[in-house]
């Protein structure tokens, strides 16, 4: 098997799992758990393998021609620094969440259906990351979104259905904007291949349509990423889902469908001008502050975490919007870190919900005595998100603030610092009301979560602890290559076309 053949496997494996599970899940006992575990483990291995493979290449890009059709005529799949960075992030989090779900989903009925939707969502996310074709990106984006609408409603309580309905409406509006944008671009450039589109656009002068399309994409992908004026669906949708799905949604879905797609389209296809970057920076800073201020007054643990997702997404967008090497590096690093610690926080909230059947911070307290491991992993995640050294969140926030100062945006830098302090305040509240103080009598019998749930949270906590090491020179190519792809801008077109002809 040729090395380049691993690229379509990122779509094939979860898709196979997704459709085998409803066929065999009812006949063979525990088949669904087995299939999901196996496929996620394989994907994690493959994503790391792809990263190492990419390191051994000089131009750091691999193009797969689906059906043997040379781009721009056929669909291309592109594995470059940014894709492989996102693949590792997504599949790492997904693997931990899958291990966690094996036990956690006992709370709900119909595991096979859950794992079918889970695999479909994963397939959509991997597809969005790996594809080199704009319409294909839309199709995968819809696969992931529709699976996530169904997963938000998985508990089928009135509140969950309402949240899912709201999410579905807002998500469809976002998809329509993206679709209209793609249609306009297709009409303008007569091609759907992302690289070819960038090449054609670079010849067009004074194209006002492109700016209009840029706005459409900003609305569409901004809604998917829950940037502040478009964030209304997130605080309802994320807490309503089962905890493992909240971890997936907050941890990686909004980043893959929102930020990755936004960055790919703005930097590599349209070409980032200062106007776009200023808008991105402003929205990022706004999300940062609004998200964290709204989070401060929440008492529902998962709702609080959902508001923090908005705030942390702001950091990522601010970093990427700076457009400088340091800013983009910091933004991408924060993207990785946030997916790790936010999924850890949601998984911990799931463990608490699993044991106590409540997520109201006013009812809990003193859980450190009965759930010692969850208390420790939650402490690590809280310190990471608040940006306490030596945890990973500290380094990425520091990079973003440095990048702001370096470019002379002292206002944005102070926004980032204020948001970080407010985050710390908010998570001090979480730690205090969850784990310290007197244990209530009705929770005396509570036990630590089952071991498979604990293992996945501990793994994520270790990644949080060691995440800062990714900045070492020997490991820096992991994020450095991803930042390089964005920094190259529309030169992406030349690279892909050259690699495709190889």
């Amino acid at each position: 098997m040729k090395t380049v053949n691993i690229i379509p496997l990122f779509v094939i494996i979860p898709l196979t799992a997704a459709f085998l599970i409803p066929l065999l899940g009812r006949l063979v006992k525990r088949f669904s758990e087995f299939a999901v575990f196996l496929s996620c483990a394989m994907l994690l291995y493959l994503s790391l393998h792809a990263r190492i493979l990419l390191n051994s290449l000089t131009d750091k890009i691999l193009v797969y021609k689906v059906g043997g059709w040379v781009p721009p005529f056929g669909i291309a799949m592109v594995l470059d620094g940014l894709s492989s960075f996102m693949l590792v992030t997504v599949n790492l989090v997904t693997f931990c969440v899958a291990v966690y779900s094996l036990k956690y989903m006992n709370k709900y009925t119909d595991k096979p259906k859950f794992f079918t939707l889970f695999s479909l969502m994963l397939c959509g996310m991997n597809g969005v990351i790996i594809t080199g074709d704009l319409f294909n990106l839309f199709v995968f984006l819809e696969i992931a979104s529709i699976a996530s609408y169904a997963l938000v409603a998985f508990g089928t309580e009135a509140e969950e259905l309402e949240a899912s309905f709201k999410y579905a409406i807002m998500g469809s509006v976002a998809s329509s904007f993206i679709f209209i944008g793609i249609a306009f671009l297709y009409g303008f450039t007569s091609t759907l291949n992302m690289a070819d589109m960038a090449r054609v656009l670079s010849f067009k002068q004074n194209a006002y349509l492109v700016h209009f399309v840029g706005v459409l994409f900003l609305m569409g992908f901004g809604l998917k990423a829950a940037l502040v004026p478009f964030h209304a669906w997130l605080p309802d949708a994320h807490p309503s889902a089962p905890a493992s799905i909240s971890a997936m949604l907050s941890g990686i879905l909004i980043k893959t469908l929102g930020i990755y797609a936004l960055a790919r389209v703005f930097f590599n296809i349209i070409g980032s001008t200062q106007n776009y970057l200023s808008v991105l920076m402003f929205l990022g800073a706004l999300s940062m502050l609004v998200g964290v201020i709204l989070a401060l007054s929440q008492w529902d643990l998962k709702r609080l975490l959902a508001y923090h997702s908005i705030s942390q997404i702001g950091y990522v967008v601010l970093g990427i919007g700076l457009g400088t090497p340091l800013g983009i590096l910091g933004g991408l690093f924060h993207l990785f870190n946030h997916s790790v610690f936010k999924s850890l926080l949601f998984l911990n909230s799931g463990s608490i919900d699993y044991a106590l059947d409540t997520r109201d911070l006013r009812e809990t307290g003193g859980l450190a005595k009965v759930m010692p491991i969850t208390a420790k992993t939650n402490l690590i995640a809280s310190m990471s998100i608040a940006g306490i050294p030596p945890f990973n969140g500290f380094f990425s926030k520091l990079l973003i603030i440095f990048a702001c100062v370096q470019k002379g945006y002292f206002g944005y830098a102070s926004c980032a610092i204020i948001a970080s302090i407010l985050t710390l305040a908010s998570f001090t509240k979480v730690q205090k009301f969850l784990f310290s103080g007197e244990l209530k009598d009705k929770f005396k019998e509570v036990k630590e979560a089952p071991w498979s749930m604990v293992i996945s949270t501990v793994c994520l906590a270790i990644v949080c602890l060691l995440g800062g090491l990714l900045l070492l020179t020997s490991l820096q190519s992991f994020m450095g290559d991803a930042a390089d792809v964005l920094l190259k801008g529309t030169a992406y077109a030349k690279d892909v076309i050259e690699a495709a002809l190889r």
Partner: protein
Amino acid sequence: MTTDSKTGMTLIVKTITRLTVGLILLFGIYIVLHGHLSPGGGFAGGVIVALSFVHLMLAFGKDVAVSKISKNLASNLESLGAIMFLSIALLGFLGGSFFLNILSKGTPFKLFSAGTIPLSNISIGIKVGLGLFAIFLALVLLEKAKKEK
């Protein structure tokens, strides 16, 4: 099928349905099989196939349609259609590439031509037809469950 007036619509509708439902089904299958030659294909044909079953359900009531295809059979066949499509795509790996058309292309405009395209159309037809029918069935069953409450 029954002319029993207790379930479904009136005798007129039932008689017309009995005459047309086979034709609709056949037309759907025709659209699927000729997908590579004429407008239409797996998706369009699949929708028409699903419509024939929906037609049956509207005229004769839920039980008659379910006796032809049960909910479990529909959902299993739907997954099978997807797996078939994926397997056809994976067969391309034998020739070296995902989705590669490895079968003989034949003469253009003949029914047996275009390699794996008709096979893909058939699997999409199964997937879409049974999938849409399953969605309609789920809505009907949900409505019934709500009324019983």
